[in-house]
Each structure stands twice: as structure tokens, then as C-alpha cells.
């Protein structure tokens, strides 16, 4: 074949690093000509659609030992970044300790995709539906930055994403997902995950919300974290809503205030498939209804709080 054309029709080279440092080194050397690939399920769709060009080099992370699997620790689950979504969904410890994550993973793509796609890939895509859960559960992401491992709180990480792209060479290795237990001081924990798409399953998200909170014996909300995402929105916390609710017993007025705080605080990224207003109302409806349900269950438990209905 004559020269000049080979370049244009060559397949990318695939590199198989033996450890994360080697992976990081490849990335450093090849720079923007290379990309980390785990399951490759999202990248593939981007290449096919022309959203991203197929790079010259693929750094295959699946060959690195020790990045898969879920380990139960005293107060947390350590989830290897290369653990597939399918494994996350079926893992006995995740099933027992993190129904929110199970629900989130269940809502992502379809089983054939989940068998390839990894939890790390879902996170570093920056718009994955597992992210809101990690944010509200105060998960920590562990990164190989080439020097020493670095950990960062999920919500701090997404906050940073709002202003700048993450370093492309940083390699997510592990997620530490804290486990929340009911205690004497906070006898009731509540949480919810909702993903609303345009169909019931295997759908891109329009709105994704996650809530994780605790209620004191007197019905006051002890702690609460709320995160919203969906579509191409990088998930973020609704700090103002959390503030309104924290330390309060939810009543109609407070819920109304929180409702408006969701409407004002949620910053969805527009696309042609739903209006921003729809996304905001959906998020507000789902979040406030969850708080109301939690409160109603508590109230039905026989304790009559002040300012009840």
C-alpha cells in the first residue's frame, strides 16, 4: 500500500500496564494521544457518535491486578475501581449495606453493559448515575497521581469538576464507601435514589437524585445530604436545601421552603429531551416527597412532633 494512507486507517495500539504506576507512566508519556480504558462501554459510544476521536493509544486497565473486588471494612466498603457494575449489583456486602448503590447501579444501562462497565468508569465519566450516591454517602475516591496515592471526598471532587477538568493522568483506583448505622442519637436513617429517564429501563437520565439522612428521636433531621444530576449535568449537592432541613422537624412550611430551594439550587445542563423546568420540578417533587414519606413514617410511629399536620 502506498504511504500516506496507513496512518488514517490504523487501529489504535493497546497498552497493557502491569500496575497503576505503569499505567500512569504510559499516560504521562503518550499524553493526549492515549486514554485509559476500563470497560470501554461509554467510550465506544462516544467514538461511534463522533463525540470523541478514537485515540492513537488505549491504555487497558483491565490487565492491572488488584483493582477489582469489594472488601468489607469496619465502617466502609472498599470498592476496586475496575469492579464491574454487574459485580457491584450482586455483591452480598453491597446488597446488605448499601441499598442506594444497588439501586443506582441497577438503573445504569442494561445487564450486558453492566457486565463490562466498571464503577470507576461510571465515576470518571463525571455524569454517571452512581455519583450522586457516592456524594451523599460521603465516599472517598482514591487516586493514583503518579506520586503518592491521594484520596478526595466525592463531593469535593465533583465541586472541582464544576470549574476545571480533572487531571487526565489521575487514575481512580478505589472507592471507600462509608456505612451508615442507626445509633441511639440517630435512631433512624433514611435514603433514596431516583433516576428518571424517558423510559423505564436502559435509559439516559433526565434527573438523578440521591438522599442520605438521619433522624433524631425527636423527629429532627440530624444530618442530610442531597445530590442531583442527570443527563450531562455533573452531579452536585444541594447544600442550601440540606441547610434548610438540618436540625428541623419537617412540616409543610419547611418542605415548601426546601422545595423552592431545590428549584433554585439545581443547575441541570440543558438538552433537547426535557426542559430545565421539568428537571427542576421533578427533582423537587422527588426529594420533597422522600422527606415527607420519611417524616410520615416517623409520625405514624406514634410520636407526635410539634408543628405536625
Amino acid at each position, binding site marked *: 500500500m502506498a504511504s500516506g494512507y496507513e496512518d488514517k486507517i490504523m487501529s489504535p495500539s493497546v497498552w497493557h500496564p502491569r500496575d497503576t504506576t505503569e499505567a500512569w507512566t504510559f499516560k504521562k508519556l503518550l499524553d493526549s494521544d492515549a486514554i485509559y480504558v476500563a470497560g470501554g462501554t461509554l467510550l465506544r459510544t462516544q467514538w461511534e457518535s463522533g463525540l470523541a476521536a478514537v485515540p492513537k493509544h488505549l491504555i487497558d486497565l483491565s490487565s492491572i491486578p488488584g483493582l477489582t473486588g469489594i472488601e468489607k471494612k469496619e465502617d466502609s466498603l472498599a470498592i476496586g475501581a475496575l469492579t464491574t457494575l454487574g459485580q457491584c449489583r450482586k455483591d452480598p456486602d453491597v446488597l446488605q449495606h448499601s441499598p442506594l448503590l444497588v439501586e443506582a447501579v441497577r438503573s445504569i444501562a442494561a445487564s450486558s453493559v453492566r457486565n463490562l462497565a466498571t464503577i470507576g468508569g461510571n465515576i470518571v465519566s463525571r455524569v454517571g448515575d452512581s455519583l450522586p450516591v457516592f456524594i451523599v454517602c460521603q465516599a472517598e475516591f482514591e487516586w493514583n497521581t503518579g506520586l503518592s496515592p491521594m484520596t478526595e471526598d466525592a463531593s469535593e471532587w465533583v465541586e472541582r469538576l464544576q470549574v476545571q477538568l480533572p487531571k487526565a493522568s489521575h487514575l481512580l483506583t478505589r472507592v471507600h464507601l462509608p456505612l451508615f448505622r442507626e445509633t441511639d442519637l440517630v435512631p433512624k436513617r433514611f435514603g433514596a435514589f431516583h433516576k428518571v429517564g424517558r423510559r423505564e429501563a436502559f435509559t439516559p437520565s433526565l434527573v438523578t437524585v440521591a438522599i442520605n439522612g438521619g433522624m433524631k428521636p425527636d423527629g429532627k433531621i440530624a444530618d442530610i445530604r442531597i445530590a442531583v444530576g442527570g443527563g450531562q449535568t455533573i452531579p452536585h449537592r444541594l447544600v442550601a436545601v440540606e441547610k434548610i432541613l438540618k436540625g428541623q422537624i419537617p412540616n409543610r412550611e419547611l*418542605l415548601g421552603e426546601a*422545595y423552592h430551594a431545590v428549584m433554585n439550587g439545581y443547575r441541570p445542563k440543558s438538552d433537547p429531551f426535557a426542559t430545565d423546568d421539568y428537571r427542576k420540578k421533578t427533582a423537587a417533587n422527588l426529594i420533597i416527597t422522600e422527606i415527607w414519606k420519611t417524616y410520615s413514617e416517623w409520625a405514624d410511629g406514634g410520636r407526635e412532633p410539634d408543628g405536625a399536620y
Partner: protein
Amino acid sequence: MALTRTTSGERWRIRPDGPDKVTGKLAYLTDMYQEGMLIGRVLRSPHPHAGIVSIRTDKAKRIPGVHAVITHADVPGMNRFGIVNPDQPVLCEDRVRYIGDAIAAVAAETQEIAALALESIEVEYVLLPVVDDPAFAQTKQAPRLHPGGNVLHRNQYGHGEVGKGFAKCKHIVEESYSTPRQMHTYMETEGGLFIPEDGGRLTVYSPTQHGYKDRMQLARILGLPEFNIRVVSSPIGGSFGGKDELNVQPYGALLALVTGKPVKIHNSRYESVRAGLKRHPMKIKMRTGVDENGRIMAHQVHIVADTGAYATLGAEVLNFAIEHVTGPYTYESVEVEGVSVYTNNGVSGEFRGFGGNQAIFALEGQMDRLAEKLGMDPWEFRLANMRKPEDPGPLGQTIVRTDGAMRTWESLARSPIWLRRHDRRTSEPWIRRGTGAAIAMHGSGLGFGIPDPAGGMLALAEDGKIEAIFGYEEFGQGLIATLELMLIEQFGFGAEDVRIVIGDTDLVPHSGSSTASRATSMMWKSLQKLRGPFLDRMLNEASKLLSQPADNLRIGRGGIWDKSGEHLLLTYALLARNISEEIRFQTHFPFPVSPTKRVGAHYLYTYAAVAVEVEVNVLTGRVKVLKQFHAIAAGPVMNPQGFLGQIEGGSGMAVGFALTEDSLMERGAYLTRNLDTYLIPSYADLNGEIEVHAIEELPEDDDHGPRGVGEIGSVCIAPAISEAVFQATGKRVNKLPIDPELLQETPDFLAKAVDGI
């Protein structure tokens, strides 16, 4: 009778083409491969509307591994295609009218080289204003997309005087309905293998719903006699009307002839979305009035269909919509007019339901709104205005006497879903439940004035197989299984005795198209006509060989039996080996048409009455279809599994039409370019229970037998869902797919706190 696996008994059979399909063993035409074949690709316009200044192919031609680069200059015959109205360029000369328009085609040794060749073709365009709105397209300011202007077709129908009719009305409902640009979304995208043969012949292995029509069109394009082309058109991985028109065939055929080598083309999903047909988006304005007794005095309809860049069957779809906006009702006066308009919005064309889906959504919406105004039960209101069996058809034409409307109406009225429609209990206050119903009559066949030939052949092959030979295609609908069951039940053959030959123009007779819910009817009718002569001849030949009177013999499984059925006397193989002359019978006849001379008017109709139960979550506005009931009057059920499959499948497509599917376009470009944004219903959306009742009895004098059910399952779902949503939420839907935002509410427990802030 409720049609289920259980009620079907032994008639519920494993379809002959089933195992190979579900195991992936079956090679579709687009899976075919030949040593030394080239890969064909088509260069399509990136602009929805532009003039072509120049096309330069030199660079592309110089790429090693590229065997041909062709443009309009290389089309030896007519550089146009279109089943009825050939106005679409095979390869554009001086202008492109949609983003799928073809400009050049290449044949290369690999996919990669072909892709590179496409990139290397230099086309200079001058951009033209995009006509993306059918209303604008009809104005004087709009650029003319075709020499005859921007109106593809206009048609009307009417009787009585609507002005006088409206004057007598107590209530008038006026509404404008909009329907989406639905995509066929077959699993197998368009493609095929094109092989030049000895003697200047060409074999085309490529899915289509009418092999002979493709052959005719290709002959026209290639400048070849039709008999030089063999079209193998089956099996197909889904079509739904979308592969009825030519798609990749002209390019594959041209490239194969130019290079003298086999050429394979197979569209990616992106290319399929971009180049392929869609359902006509329609805006249907209706004004309908009733007198104080609930009788419809006047019905005025105006339809605007966005037919996109080229005609294909746009005119016929509009005619069908005009015929179906009146439905199974009688009116004192009717005035319908419609226009199908060219735009730069892709190409709209034939799609299961054929304009009926849009028409019936609007019409049934009117019926529900009128009933509400009258304070009447919507089903009773329909009954009060229902056509009588002897009434003429929707266009005033003579039709076969039919009581399908009444029969399906009654069946639905007794259905469990309908009987419990007032029970609105749900698990949560923000979940609302509602039930809605719709009824329709749907024409089958192509209609008056359109050549609609039918026919088939039966033969005893040399190896003793009974061959049933038809020019139809299997695209998943179950045609092979249905034909096999007819041969077993009506002739007494065993499944292993028969061989079904379809979808190959070198082997099959002209049977017409596998469209318009016609194939089952026409196979049945052909077999009725062939049965007597064919069996008589078999028995006579057997009688000679066995030296027994034919009266003592009977046809059975495996061969000729004695009258008692106790002894197999002669296998079909032995019979075939010993006959003096070939046993082969052929029949030809047209699809039955109305004596009334109105182009497109139908003669045979099927009926459906459908009830659905839905849940609406007002927090999200999302609608979930819980249960469906379908009463279908389409004559005797030829194949229970196939019948059920068609109704359930048609219904699934219609749920998509109602709830999720729309090919969004912006300035003539698709925003939904793949199945990650264009969403067809998933299993989770369709897992509700579906009950199908088949009403098999026909009026005594009706000898037309079974009617096809390929479309009827898809036409009533959208209006039924819309009414169910209204019952659940109090909100009227006039636009599909239903926008969840319309149905969203602030939860009750918050209403006071949130109101007014």
C-alpha cells in the same frame, strides 16, 4: 375467544424459522459474505439543503484498495427512484434536499479504506435555506424543493354541508393534534450483498417488502432488462414498512456492475437513522360537533403531513389518513382535506399503520372530548354514532358488509379492564390510575386504482416436497409459520412434507407486496383457489400409479393414504418420481377492491377495540401502561401465535409512538442519531398484561376469509392511552409522544405551601 397459548391447543406451534432466529444461527441477507467481496459505502450530504457546485473524486479513486467511486454520471439508466413517484435521485446531480441524500458511492477492499475514500471525495456545496416547517413550506417565501412546488399531494373528501351541520350543534370540540416522526427501528439495518453473475446478470440479496418492485426499480436505474436481475429479499430482520422503498440497493447494484465484483453494503445505525424513512409527522386539526342527543352533525378535518424531501409513498399515506379520520362512525356532514408537503426534514414514508395511527389518534381524541362535553360515557357515545353493517365505507365507497365495529365494541364493553375502570385506587397519592379505550376500522390492501396483484403457486417438487411458492417476504411477522399451518390444516400435509419458497424473483410468481396487511389474506385466497386442482391432480396421478380409483384415496401426512387413513399407499417422493408430467398450479388474481372508483379507497376492513389501564406518576409526569385489552375482528385466525405476535408487537410499537419515540430534528438535522437517544420501549415498559380477543366470525356472505393483522394492533393504543391519562389526571393530550411535563403536579401535601410562591 381469548387468544392464548392454552386456548390455541395444538395450533400453537413452534415457528419453523424460530429456533435459528433465537439462537442466532440464521444468516440474514446482511450477514452474507463472499470471498473477494468489496465493501460499499455511500457519501451522504451533510447539509439538509444545498446546491452542489462540484464533486471531485480523483483523490478517492487514487487510494490503493479503492475499486470504484461513482457519482450521478455513472448511473446508466434513470437516476431516480420511488415506488410510485420516482423523484429521489439515486446520486444527486446538482442539489441535495436532506441530510441523507446520496452524492457518491465507493467500493473498496476494506471498511477502513472505504471510509477513507468517502472522506477524500471533495464536494463543494452552496448552502440553501432549510425548509423545516411544513406550514412555511406552503408559503410563497419558501424555496421550491421540487419543480412542481412544495406540495406533494392534496386530497379531500366530504359529504353533506358542515356549515349547516355545525349550526345544529350543541357542543363543538376543536383541537389540533400532533404526532411524532417515529422510526421503524428494525433490528437489522439496511444492507445487502450484490453479486455480478455470468451472462451479465446481477443477484441482489437485500431485504425489501416487494422483491419484484425492487427488481423493476433497479432495472430502471441500471438500464438492464428486469430478467437480468434476481432479487432475493427474504429473510429480513424487521421492516415495518421501512424497507419497502429502495435504500442501499441502487448503490450496491451499481458498484457491483462497475467493479465486476461482489459488493456488500450494510448501514450502520447512524446511517440508517440519517438516510432511512420515518413515519409522517402530522398536524391534524379537527372540529367536530354534536347535537343535544349526541349525534355527530359535523366533522371537519385538516391534515398537514410532513413528507420530507422525497415522495416515496407520501401521497398514498395521506390518502389513507384522509380515509381513516372518520372511522367507524356516521356523520351528518364531513369535510376532510389534507396536504402532504415537501420539506428538508429527512424522508417520511410507509410505516405500519400507514397514516392510520395519526388519523385515529386525532379522531378518537375527538370522540372522548365530545363524550365529556355531553356528560356521556365515552364508549356509549361511540355506540350512538357507530356505523351499521350495511353502511358504506369511510369515503362513501361500497365495502364488504361488516359488523366488526359492533362486535369489537361489545367485546371491549365486557372486558375486565373496562368493567373496573372506575376503580382508581393506587398505592400512593401521587400515582393516578385511569382507563381509556379506542376503536378503529383499518383498511387492508393497497386500495382502489393501485395495481395490487396477488397469487401463488403449488408444486410437487422432484424430491417429493410439496412446494408452496409465493412472492412474499418473511420479516418476522410469521408468514412462513402461517403458510405452513395453512398447508397442514387445509391440505392435510405434514410439516415435513412441505417446502416454502418465498422472496426470490427467480423462483416465485408475482404475489404483490408483503405490505398493507395483505399477505395472509392473499395466501389464504391463493390456497383456496389452488387446493381443488392441485389435490385432484395429485390424487389422479396416484390413482394411475396405484391402479385404484381416486375416490378411494386421500391426501395425508407423508403421502397418499387409503380412504380409511389406515395405510400409507404412496409417499410423495415416490409419486414425484413416477408422475408423467410435472404437477404445478399457479393462480393470479387482484386483491379485491371496491366497485366505487375512488383512488386508494379500501374494500376490506379489520376492526380493533382497545382498552388500556395506565398509571401516571404526577411527581415525574411519567406514564406507565399497566394492562391492555384488544378485541380484533379480522376473520378466522390462521396462526394463533402469529396473530398474537402481531397484535402484541404492533401494540409495543404504538406504546413507543405514544410515550417515548420521536426523531427530533433541528434545522433538518437529526438530534436523535442513535438508539441511545431515540428510545423505543424496553421490556420494562411493556411488561404489562395484554389480553387479545379474536373475533373470528364473518358475516355469512363474506367469502374473503382471514384478513391480515400486521397493522391493526398499532392503531388504537395512542388514543386509548391519551384517554386513560385524561381519566387519571384530568389533562388532555393532543401531542405525541406525551410530554411528562404536562402531567406533572406538585404533590398534594405540598400544594398549599408551594402555591403562590
